[in-house]
């Protein structure tokens, strides 16, 4: 049996080599992909790798329908004689030390032209340090911790939006609502008190002040609380025009139930991903949380659109829909492929220069970013997110208006 499958494998490999014959004219461009392929986050890592593989396939094959995306669907990288992209994956198991070891292996043994990674912020933090020392570009599609881009690295490029982007988007949305005639003067921020909630909550408060809103209250709390009525009563007393929650799952559900029980329905609620995006949230409290807002940079869009076609291809391969995290990774692969094509070379220095010169417009992207342009820290300054609203059984895209698939419902319907 074992011999047999080995034989099959050899035959398949041979067939693949024969099929790939013409492409050998130009050497393949190797790109290292560092993701958690085993351990607690293996699902997320596997899905990200699937999305990145699909991105490479779309770059390598001919797809005229994706002409709006640069370097995609041209049957390889045109400035490198039609060279194909070859994905070399590595598993970091969610372990920062393993992330370093694998990055070193990808660069020194596999000779990859660039590395993409790596889901966990703490792994991205250590792995990118190796790439920096080796002088190879490290492109971040998914990790959002602020400290990743605060080290003055020259070889690090982060495509994904981070907390300050989300927070700014929330405030832009509220400003738009105010312009549309709704009363929005005060906001309250309710955040759980570990790393995630504290940093995002703080950023939201900062951005709210910057956009001229009054912060009626910031309420940090412990996500393991068995009861949140004290917090809800505080909100009821302050009566803000919008409440922004930075919460995990049990607490997000508990807040919705407690608000209903204490008959407190703020004009609007924005939940920052996490608990409000958990698969258990909608089944548990979907019918009393109608109109709750959330964020996502990925939106499937209208049937026939580029994003809908990408989602179909992904679904055909994996059996499930593209999610926000995997889609952000896929976008990062497209950005990197385009930079390599513009560099016209696999020389890391030239790719670095091309990444620095990246200036993509919103219509050249599959994500809801306002573009891709890196500042001196390597952060994409045009990264942004869509806002989505729970209407019926699903979140639908409602903001910004030009990409929205549904109208914003204001005020919050809740359980009425």
């Amino acid at each position, binding site marked *: 049996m074992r011999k047999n499958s080995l034989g099959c494998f050899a035959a398949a490999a041979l067939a693949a080599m024969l099929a790939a014959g013409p492409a050998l004219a130009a050497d393949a461009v190797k790109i290292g992909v560092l993701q958690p392929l085993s351990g607690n986050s293996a699902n997320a890592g596997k899905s990200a790798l699937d999305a990145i593989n699909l991105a490479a396939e779309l770059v390598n094959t001919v797809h005229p329908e994706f002409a709006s995306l640069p370097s995609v669907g041209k049957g390889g990288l045109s400035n490198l004689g039609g060279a194909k992209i070859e994905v070399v994956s590595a598993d970091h198991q969610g372990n920062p030390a393993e992330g370093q070891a694998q990055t070193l292996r990808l660069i020194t043994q596999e000779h990859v032209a660039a590395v993409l990674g790596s889901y966990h912020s703490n792994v991205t933090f250590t792995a990118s340090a190796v790439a920096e020392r080796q002088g190879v570009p490290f492109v971040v599609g998914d990790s959002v911790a602020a400290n990743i881009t605060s080290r003055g690295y020259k070889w690090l490029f982060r495509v994904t939006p981070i907390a300050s982007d989300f927070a700014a988007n929330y405030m832009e949305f509220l400003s738009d609502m105010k312009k549309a005639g709704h009363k929005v003067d005060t906001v309250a921020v309710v955040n759980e008190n570990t790393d995630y909630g504290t940093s995002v909550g703080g950023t939201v408060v900062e951005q709210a002040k910057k956009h001229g809103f009054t912060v009626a209250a910031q309420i940090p709390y412990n996500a393991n609380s068995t009861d949140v009525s*004290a*917090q809800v009563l505080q909100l009821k007393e302050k009566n803000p025009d919008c409440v922004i929650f930075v919460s995990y799952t049990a607490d997000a559900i508990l807040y919705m139930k407690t608000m209903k029980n204490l008959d407190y329905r703020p004009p609007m609620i924005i939940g920052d991903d996490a608990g409000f995006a958990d698969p258990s949230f909608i089944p548990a409290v979907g019918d009393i949380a109608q109109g709750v807002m959330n964020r996502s940079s990925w939106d499937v869009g209208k049937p026939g659109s580029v994003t809908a076609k990408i989602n179909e291809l992904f679904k055909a391969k994996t059996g499930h829909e593209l999610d926000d995290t995997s889609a952000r990774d896929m976008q990062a692969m497209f950005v990197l492929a385009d930079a390599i094509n513009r560099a016209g070379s696999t020389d890391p220095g030239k790719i670095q220069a091309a990444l620095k010169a990246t200036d993509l417009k919103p219509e050249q992207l599959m994500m809801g970013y306002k573009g891709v342009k890196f500042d001196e820290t390597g952060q994409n300054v045009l990264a942004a997110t869509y806002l989505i609203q729970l209407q019926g059984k699903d979140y639908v895209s409602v903001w910004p208006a030009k990409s929205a698939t549904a109208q914003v419902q204001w005020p919050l319907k809740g359980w009425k």
Partner: protein
Amino acid sequence: MILLQVVVGGLLLGAVYALFSSGLTLIWGMMNFINFAHGEFVMLGMYVALVVVTAVHGGPAVFAPAAAVALFLLGVLVYGALIKHVTRGPMLAQILSTFGLALLLRYSAFFVFSSDFRTLPESALSGSLNLGGIFVGKPQLLAGVVAAALTLGMHMLLTRTALGSRLLAVAEDRNAAMLMGIRPDRMQALAWGLSAASAGIAGALMAVAYPFSPSVGETFALTAFVVVSLGGFGSVPGAMIAGFIIGLVDQLAGFYVGPIYKDVVVYGLFVAVLWVRPQGLLGRL
């Protein structure tokens, strides 16, 4: 008005605390044995309720007794298969055995039910009553009534019946009780069954109000230990009073001092009380 709502909220929370703590204190009172798996019993009560609701769509009148019966049997089984054997061993073995049992139950639940958060569908018990602007959560109110009934029932059982006397006799002196013709194993198995059953009812009622996953027991277990030691180990009425005190302090501090500091106030008070009365409010030294 808002102060009244906070006080009512505190009393209702206290009722829930009292409910899931009463079983823990019973085991201590009967056996001088700390059950670290008590939070997991509560968690299993929640999942029994979920399974019953999914299977037969019954209301609280169906799933609460079902959870009580299922957990009673589990309690007896745990006593027969584990506790009976480790009580002959050193103190450390007793402590670690229920700790291990807690992990076994928790991770078995992860295996069977996955780590997703679950909630019970809306039922007659969901929501709250509006009493002139003061909102009273129905599940919490029922928890309070059941906690009071259980406390009273256990108190009566222990002080007014022959069965209670036999239970207490075994707790007092196992060998002397045997000489009087009492079978200590049966009595203690009964105590474990009653303790687990009360945890099961508590879990089933809380499942209506609280989203749960297999790790929910940790949260409840810590509170239960605080309630039991404040009330006095082994005192069922003590657990009731301590539950109300902690619930009230929790809510008042959460509202006036801030949710992240409320634990400072709660545990500060806890330490202060134990400093003055190390045996707890109603405990005996």
